[in-house]
Every structure is written in C-alpha cells, then in structure tokens.
C-alpha cells in the first residue's frame, strides 16, 4: 500500500483513450468513480474492476487498476471467483441493463443472494447501446426501437425490486447527472460489507436520449425525486417542503412535517419494495438513495471460516494422507 496516501483522481485514469459517444452519461460516472477511489484512499494494485459486455462494460479499460473485461452477463461469476480466491481485493463490477438484467439476470440474482463483498454498478439506460438501439429488459412497454417498431410489448424489470427480490443487502439508486449524490452513494456502497447494488440512471445520447428527463432534468429534479436517507425523513423539493408517508399498503404525499422517517435497515424488504414500485407512478417522486442497508454474513468470509474450522477439526491437510487414505495393502 505504498502509494495509497498520495493517489489523486487522475492517478486512477488509465492511458487508454475513452471511447464512449460524446455526451454519454458514462463519462460522469467514470469521473465520479475515479474521484471516489481517490477520496477513499484505494490502492491501484488492490482494486479490481470486472465487467461483462456492453457500453458500460468498457469501464475497466479506463481505470488504472487491475481490470477484467469478461463475457456477456457473466461478470458476477468471475467476481465471485476473484473474491473467493483473494478476499482482500476491492472488487467492483460494472454492468448495464442488458448485461445485468437480461443475459446475466441469473448470475446477478445469485451473487446478490450469496452476499459476496462486491460493489455492483448497473448503468441503466433502458436500451441496448453497443448493438445500436434495440429495446432492453428495462425499456418501458411501448418503447419504439429497431426491434420493436410498434413498441415493446415486454413488461420491464425494475432493477431495484429485482435486487430486493434476491434479498440483496445493499440496494441504492442514483443519477449520472447528479454527481454529488452519486459520489455519496458510491461511498456508502464501498463501505458496505456484502454485495452493494447501485442502479445508476444513465442517459444514452444516441439511442434513448432523455429517457430519464421526467425525473433527472436539473430543472425539475428536486421536485420529482426523493432521496432515501437512512434515519432521515422522507422530505423532498427544492426547499424540502414536500413529504412522503406510509399509509397502510401504500405511500402517499404529505407535508414535510407529516413525512415518515426512512429506515433502510429493517429486515423485511417490504418498505423498500414499496419504494421501488414508485418507479412509474405519476405525481409521485422517484426515489433515489439507499433502499436497503442490512447486515448479513459475507460469502467469501464464510468460505474462509469453514476452511479454518475444517483445519481446526481435522488438522492442516497433508497430501500424503489424501493419497494413503482408506484400506491399503502391500505388494512385495
């Protein structure tokens, strides 16, 4: 860890030319991540960025850390192997709505339920970018694209509720245009022991430009989003004068004074799921921030614990004992 103290944001920039489209939301995310790496004092050598396939998955090439650009949808498998083989590494997994929710949906669910200590950033732009504009598993019904000329008839996945359904222990959402919020969420994700899942609304300027404008546009953002801050009230608006409260099996708008206090640490996923469902309700703010933040055993630590227990119970294994075990006999 010789160089950790002095590292600045630019020290995490690799020498490779960044090849995203001009204006892509990925640039802001890359910049935020590099800043967070410096702020948190990460070492370059101890950090690994793993990705699948897609625009977002080019991310590791632009980080001056260890990086592994793998195959479509399977990054969770690689990340799990990396963490199990060396739990000391600081592992980040970058994926998108196609890579993570479609071809890799299975693996994403399983890494979340296992609670491997990996930070997952899912760039959601509701479209396939690298293959040039087909609808994705998060595209809303009716979205017109090259492969859905009459509008998509697929009911979309909601990444937040997908993660909650897999019993993820840290679930959050942020926006590419809200750099300060994003940095705060990334730091919380990094601090979490277990899998952190962060959905990042990310604008694709070429194939789905403005898809989050109804909530992310700077002019309306404060009124159209509510930041889930654990332990704080559910207030929003430029003046924090609006509120949200639980009422039976639903959420409703209320004054700031009447707003409920947000608790992301309850064992039940129910309140977080209710928040997640606010995704497409008119008149309601879109939740950002931390949906869930609970403690649970970490997969690779449990692996190490069992190995230590086995060694304690049976003694450090010797190869000769494996070879010579059971009934043996001599031939003279």
């Amino acid at each position, binding site marked *: 860890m010789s160089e950790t103290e002095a590292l600045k944001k630019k020290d995490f920039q690799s020498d490779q030319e960044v090849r995203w489209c001009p204006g892509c939301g990925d640039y802001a995310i890359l910049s935020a991540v590099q800043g967070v790496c410096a702020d948190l004092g990460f070492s370059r050598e101890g950090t690994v960025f793993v990705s699948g396939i897609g625009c977002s998955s080019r991310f590791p090439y632009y980080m001056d850390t260890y*990086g592994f650009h793998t195959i479509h949808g399977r990054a969770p498998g690689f990340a799990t192997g990396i963490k199990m083989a060396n739990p000391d590494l600081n592992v980040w997994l970058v994926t998108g709505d196609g890579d993570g929710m479609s071809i890799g949906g299975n693996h994403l669910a399983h890494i979340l339920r296992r609670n491997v200590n990996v930070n997952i950033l899912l760039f959601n732009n509701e479209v396939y970018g690298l293959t040039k504009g087909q609808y994705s598993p998060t595209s809303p019904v009716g979205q017109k694209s090259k492969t859905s000329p009459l509008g998509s008839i697929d009911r979309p996945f909601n990444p937040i509720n997908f993660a909650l359904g897999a019993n993820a222990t840290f679930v959050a959402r942020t926006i590419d245009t809200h750099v300060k919020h994003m940095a705060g969420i990334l730091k919380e994700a990094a601090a979490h022991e277990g899998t952190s899942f962060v959905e990042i609304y990310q604008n694709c300027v070429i194939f789905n430009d403005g898809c989050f404008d109804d909530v992310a546009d700077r002019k309306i953002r404060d009124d159209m989003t509510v930041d889930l801050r654990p332990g704080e009230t559910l207030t929003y608006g430029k003046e924090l004068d609006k509120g949200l409260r639980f009422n039976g099996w639903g959420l409703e708008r209320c004054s700031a004074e009447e707003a409920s206090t947000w608790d992301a640490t309850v064992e039940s996923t129910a309140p977080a799921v209710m928040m997640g469902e606010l995704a497409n309700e008119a008149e309601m703010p879109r939740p950002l921030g931390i949906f869930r933040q609970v403690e649970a055993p970490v997969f690779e630590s449990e692996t190490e614990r*069992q190995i230590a227990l*086995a060694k304690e119970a049976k003694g450090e294994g010797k190869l000769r004992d494996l070879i*010579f075990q059971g*009934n*043996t006999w*001599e031939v003279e």
Partner: protein
Amino acid sequence: MTTTKEPGSDLPLQQQESVVIRFAGDSGDGMQITGNQYATTSAVVGNDLATMPDFPAEIRAPAGTRAGVSGFQLAFSSKDIFTPGDRPDVLIAMNPAALVENIKDLKPDGIVVVNTGNFGDRDLEKAKCESNPLLDGTLDGYRVIEVDMNQRVKEALTETELKPKEVQRCKNFYTLGLMYWLFSRPLQPTEDWLKEKFAKKMHLAEANIIAMRAGFNAGDIQELFQGRYEVPKCDVLTPGTYRSVMGNEAVAIGLVAGAQAAGLEPFLGSYPITPASTILETLAGMKNHGVKTFQAEDEIAAVCAAIGAAYTGGLGITSTSGPGVALKGEALGLAVSIELPLIVVNVQRGGPSTGLPTKTEQADLLQAIFGRNGEAPIPVVACATPADAFDCAMEAVRIATQYMTPVFLMTDGFIANGAEPWRLPEVEDLPKFTKEFRTDAENYQPYSRDENGARPWVKPGTPGLEHRVGGIEKAHLTGNISYDPDNHEFMTHARQEKVMGIANSIPTPEVKGAQSGKLLILGWGSTYGSIADAVERTNEDEDKVGRIHLRHVWPLPNGLEEIFSRYESILIPEMNLGQLARLLRSEYPKHDFLSYSKVQGQPFRAYEIAAKIQELLENKS
C-alpha cells in the same frame, strides 16, 4: 447370533485365477454399495481388480421394473488384469427384472444366484415377464442357486427391533456375505466399514453385519454350492502400497497434488452433473487441505468463477460432463484469449443432449479440441483408467500452468465410477513444476512471452503491474485493445503455436507388442484396458499386432508419423463414431486408419476388440 465359520470347511476349495461377478438388482437394492464393498475386500486380500457400475439415470425408477435395474460388475484376479471382465462367471439377480436383463451376458455354465423371494406373480408382472424365467427354460445351461433372501434375512433379523422394511433393506448384505463365502473372502473389512458408516446408528450396522454373516454361513449350512473357490493374491503387481480408487476420486486427489506441485491454491467452480458430481463432492470435503469449492448457479458461472480464481492467481478448475462443456464454451474462449491456466474436467457420458447420463461414451473429443468460436486451441489430456486419472490430473496442471492455457482433462463414466488398485506414490516422488508469478514492474508487458510462448502471470494486488485483460483482441506485448488486422493474425498464430508447442514437452508413447507389421491398435481414454486385454490375447503365442495409447490427444505427441509408418493399418476402437480416427486422418494423411466404433453407452469388451483384430488379420493374410 450364529458364529461365522472360517474359510476351510468341508466343501472342496478350488483355486481360480480370475473371477467376474455381477450384482444386479433394483436401484433401491443397494447393488452399488454391495459391489464396492466386494471390490474393497478383494483389494484388501491382494487381488488385482477392476469394477464397472452400470445404473439407471433415475434415482428410483418404479421398483421391480426393467428400467430400474442397477448392476455392478467386478473382476478380481491373481493376475494383472485390464478390464472388469467380458462375461460374468457369477450373476446375482435380486429380482426377475435383474435376471432377464443380465442373464444373456452370463458365461455358459456360469452360476446364477436368484433371490426367489421376489419372484411372485406381481414381481413377474412388473418385470413384464410373460412366464416365470425360473421355470420356462431361460436358465437352461446355467448353474442356478435359488435362495429366498427375503425370508432368510427376515429369519436372521427376528431378534432385532427393525421394522420389516428396514429388515428387507439388509438383504444386499446377505448377498454380499454369501458371495464372500463362495470366494473365501474375509468379512472384517465390510464390518469395519459398516461400523464407521453407521457410527451414529449402531443398530443398523449390527443388523447388516448379522445379515452378512447369515449369508456367509448359509454357504456352508445349506450346501447351496458344490464347492468354494479361492482367488489367490496377485503377485505380479509392481511392489508397493496399494489401495482401491475410483476415477473421480483420483481426479480430485490428482488436482490437489497438481496444485501443490505448482505451488497454487486449488479452486473448483462446479455445478452438479452426472457423472461428474462426485468430483465436486470429494473436493468439497477437502477444506482442511485449503481447497475452495464453489457450487455455482449453473455451468457458466462455475467456469467463470474458476477463471476468476485463475485471474487472481489460484488454480482454477471446473468439472462437468458434455452438456456442461457446451454451456462453458464461450468462457473457455475467454480463457484461451486472456491466456490464463484453467483445468476443465469432462467426465464424458452418452450424448447428444441429455443422452445417457449414467452411461459412458467418448464422443466429446472433437468438442474438446475444436468446440469453440474462433481459433481457440485447447490441449487435451485423457485418462486411461481410474488410477491413471491421478497422473493425468497432475499432467493437466503442469501443462496449464507452464503454458498459461486452459486444458481439458477427459475421463468418462466408465473411469469415473470404476475402481482399480492404485499403487500409491510418495509425495516426494511426484513431479514438481513450481509456477512463478511476475512481481517485477520493470519492463513488464502483459503479453510478452517466455520460451514456452506463455505470458507472465500477475496476481492482482501486485504494485506497479496493474493492467487490463479481456476478450477483445489484444495487441502483442501491451495487451491493449487492438483491431489491427496484422496484429490479430500474429496473435492467432501465437496462441496456436504455443499450444502446438506443448508436444515438445511430452514423451512419444511406447508401442507394446509387435513393433511393426500388419496392424497397430491405437486408443485413447478408457478403451485402454479392453485394447490391452485384447492385444495380449491376440499375442499370446507370438507378437502379431502392436498397441499404443495416447494420453495426450491434443496436441498429438511427436514421433507418431514414424510409428505409424511401421504398420500397414492402424485400428482405432472408440466409443464414438470415429472422432480420433477422423483427426488422425487429417494430421497423418499417408496412413490407413480403421475406425472401430461402439456407441452403446457401454465400454468395449476385450473379446469384441480381439475378434475385430482377428477378422482384420485374416483379411490381410
């Protein structure tokens, strides 16, 4: 409880060189346990042996039906043997379905022991027997021993508190006891095993021991047989310490040994699949040896995790069967491209698709060598026998780590579940091939190559060597993304030449038997035993044909061209439609390769190959 009579009672004791027994019953009858116990005991008394389990894919097919028949054949001998035998000398049939499914294989004049307790009308109906095979002439020409085992075991266990159902579950041990008597084997090894197995349910251990002793004593008391046999200790085996080992177990231990030889921590990513699952189970039980196992959500995640571990500096391993290899294909291409070591164990089974999950086949050879998109060469090492799997696993690790490449380790259902004596190596006598990691940042280039064509292996966590790898084509030396046409051609050749260069590190296989002449018999994988046996029979009086076995199937070893040129024809028995023959025809176009194919989910019998050799020799003379 009756006491066990020691071998050497009144009946005449005859010496026998080799015996083949087949236990056959319902899949719930415990035939696999019975067979494995018989094998262990035969090993302990010093016989050479080979076993061949044959069971259905269904865990419990409807009881008593032909689909539910489970068999276990073993050969034990005072001579060096290569196979579990062609035809059984003794068949034990626990019910009508087991009898009619297996009787055709029994040697003429062979002994068939029948459990008459399961030959009621209902049993015959379930086995779809229109008449009772005990009465309709089916058993003419065999020595039939009828025992009502259901009744005998019930009598033996009257004083225990077992429920009737539990009592009946002891009858395989009655059978085992009877067979121990017939071939003069001790009961002690099985008694010890039962006491360990049922340490927490001692009453079950005791009940099974009583049943086994009752079976043993029945041999004497009831005078079922005309005599007893003895198969003396095998004294032609190389001196040393031996134990019985099954193929999947040998693979598991060999991989741990290989990891140790390379100085790496083993990591297995796997997904349960017949007939490979016991590799995962065995390694999962080796945690105190520092083995990490990961039961993934699917075959793809399993191999990806193994590659992740390799990326991190561990020995990445994935174990599977053919359908799993199909799923792993894309990830294997990545492993080829990023040039990391990886062991892929393919315990082959009958295909295509789900095929015959519990049966054996060798039809994944071309899948292993060529079955990926792009030019993606992967070396292939194939196990010949259960014990050979240990050495082959170590060899696969050597190649993977010294050449920074994924390696296929091929076995099959026959090897996986079969057992044979293993001459146990001392750890200090095992090969060593310590792998060095790159830690020096000076002049580091991720895609530079050493004399083997291998790139440096760097553990994440090493300061100053941070770099990025991925499946996109990489520039020579720097490893940066490159779409340059000449670079792609250069890198494609570099990967190919690296893998083909492995041939320079492997010995030319030895030819046994005739060193030149009309016919060379060539095999790979588990046909080894049947070929060896068939050629020994053919060459009994004089060396008529030669035989050669390929442990390294890809790249092919050097020196084969010269060997092939000494024979008129080369016969290749394979449990596929001639995949190796097809490969050799393209690699060595000047020679005459004859494919002898068998795809029945069953290994070759030595007599089948011997007959083929005979036919070819006659046609040539």
